[in-house]
């Protein structure tokens, strides 16, 4: 076996004295620097959350009410409850609606004019400023019901969840293999039976991923809650009363001149980020392809 005549090949390696090769080299270094700088903010935020937010971490945070003015101690139990209740209510509104709409987009009339319009509007709504959801609910519900409430806050959040759920659930259902649906139709199933027995169960991981993403997005929202749920210093007692949320607590406390409140704002941020990341990680775990 004759060895390949290596020496007869031209040297393909470029020398750095060549200006093209030098540019290439410098741009690569530049890209590394840019990429590293881009990851600094996240690392810095996480560091601050753990150092500043973690230092106050105790059970009190979860069981006590926010302190007033010069008071020491305190917690934000009511804000955690408020956030969770409003996100749960918003999910209860937007998950069924979103999945129903998504089955139409994916299965019943994917190429109809109605579907194309709806898909486009859903995409436009994903870029809809969240504060305008608050303004809308203020005009539509707060003025009509005559006051700020947890319900209004939840509706504002559900407006923000709906398009995400519709679009991701549609994608998930489209991933269900054509042959599985054909087989079910061949067995004499109606469209609805195909959807309920084949498409929804098979697409469920993908649908849940979208739901978790939507939940994690709205759990951290504050702008739409500013004038729909407002804030409250007391425990949640009714859905038609102003309600505390973690994000509004952070916003309010961040501008206070008291050290105690600012420490609490950091701890609340830590809790909020943990809640958001929990749902984010869940969405990845559920959506990860099996096998």
């Amino acid at each position: 076996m004759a060895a390949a005549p290596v020496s007869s090949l031209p040297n393909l390696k470029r020398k750095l004295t060549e200006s093209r090769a030098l540019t290439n080299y410098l741009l690569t270094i530049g890209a590394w620097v840019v990429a590293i700088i881009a990851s600094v903010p996240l690392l810095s935020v996480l560091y601050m959350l753990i150092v500043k937010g973690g230092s106050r971490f105790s059970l009190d945070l979860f069981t006590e009410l926010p302190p007033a003015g010069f008071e020491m101690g305190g917690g934000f139990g009511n804000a955690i409850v408020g956030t969770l209740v409003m996100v749960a209510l918003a999910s209860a509104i937007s998950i069924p609606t979103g999945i129903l709409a998504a089955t139409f987009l994916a299965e019943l009339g994917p190429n109809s004019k109605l579907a194309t319009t709806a898909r486009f509007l859903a995409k436009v709504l994903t870029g809809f400023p969240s504060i305008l959801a608050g303004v809308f609910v203020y005009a539509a519900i707060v003025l009509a019901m005559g006051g700020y409430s947890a319900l209004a806050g939840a509706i504002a959040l559900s407006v923000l969840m709906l398009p995400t759920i519709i679009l991701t659930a549609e994608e998930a259902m489209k991933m269900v293999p054509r042959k599985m649906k054909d087989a079910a139709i061949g067995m004499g199933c109606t469209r609805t039976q195909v959807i309920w027995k084949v498409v929804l169960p098979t697409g469920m991981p993908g649908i849940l991923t979208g739901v978790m993403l939507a939940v994690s997005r709205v759990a951290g929202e504050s702008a739409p809650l500013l004038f729909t749920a407002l804030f409250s210093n007391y425990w949640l007692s009714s859905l038609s009363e102003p309600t505390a949320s973690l994000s509004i607590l952070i916003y309010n406390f961040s501008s206070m001149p008291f050290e105690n409140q600012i420490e609490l704002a950091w701890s609340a941020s830590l809790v909020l980020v943990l809640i958001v990341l929990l749902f984010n990680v869940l969405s990845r775990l559920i959506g990860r392809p099996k096998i």
Partner: protein
Amino acid sequence: MPQNPFAHVDLSRSISRPPTKDVYLADRSYRAFAVAGIYVLLALVVYILWQIGGAAMPAVHDYHLGFLTSSAWNVQTGQFGILPQIWGTLYSSLFALMIGGFFGVTVAIFLTQNFLPPRLAVVFRTIIEMLAAIPSVVFGLWGIFVVIPAIRPVANWLHDVLGWIPFFSTSLSGPGMLPAALVLAIMILPTIAAISQDALHLVPYRTKEAAYGMGATRWEAILKVLVPAASGGIFSALVLGFGRALGETMALAMLIGNSNQITLSLFSPANTLASLLASNFPEAGAIEVQALMYAALVLLAITLIVNVLGIGILTMTTKRSAVK
């Protein structure tokens, strides 16, 4: 003698029976519900436009278009105008787009062009995606206590040395345009990076191979072949990032200083439409609420136009490359 060979089969238990009345009814009603779900979405969009437009109408009648060109915001005298807010919104968003766009597109190239071993690329991609998961209000808090103290000495040095340039004409005392725009840039970076990555993935692998075959260096292939080929998608990523920056609220309300002035200076406080709404709405009286609704309508119009534009370009470019 022809005997039915299936005589013993109970046809009513066979799988090939027509749907019963119940099944048929369930099918029809489920379809009706699904269509209703679609109409909820359509109605929601119309209702949003109707409600915000309706609530803004009295103010539109009172102030007409002068509202857009006046810079007064005086509750006592009932004079309202949002020129400084429109200016601040566009200025902060464009500035953030310049920084976030540069970083976002570079990161997208970095992640798609095999600069990193696959394992490390996943870690890095997760870091960038996690930026999108940090709530706006947490970025605001971080901006107040980390970004502002960090950039204050640099900003004030720039003001001392280069104060004659309009961008550096004031010193940075606390909240201001620069910290707000920096945080805004960080917040739109994941959006831009994600959509640009999709666009770069859509470029056929052979296009890149052909460039290498012509003897192009890696960056020549990227800058002269790949990026132009993906330019439609990258452009729409920038437009959608811009749209997101226009509507971003909490971080700006906490960092921009809420001051009604029009200035080129990066270090002086300013205001945006969204942060005007956030900071004035909760304590506004009836007349101010109407003016704020007008401001919301303007913000809605601007963001709708930008988003529709971005989505339109994205749909067009992905369709075209799908045909290829």
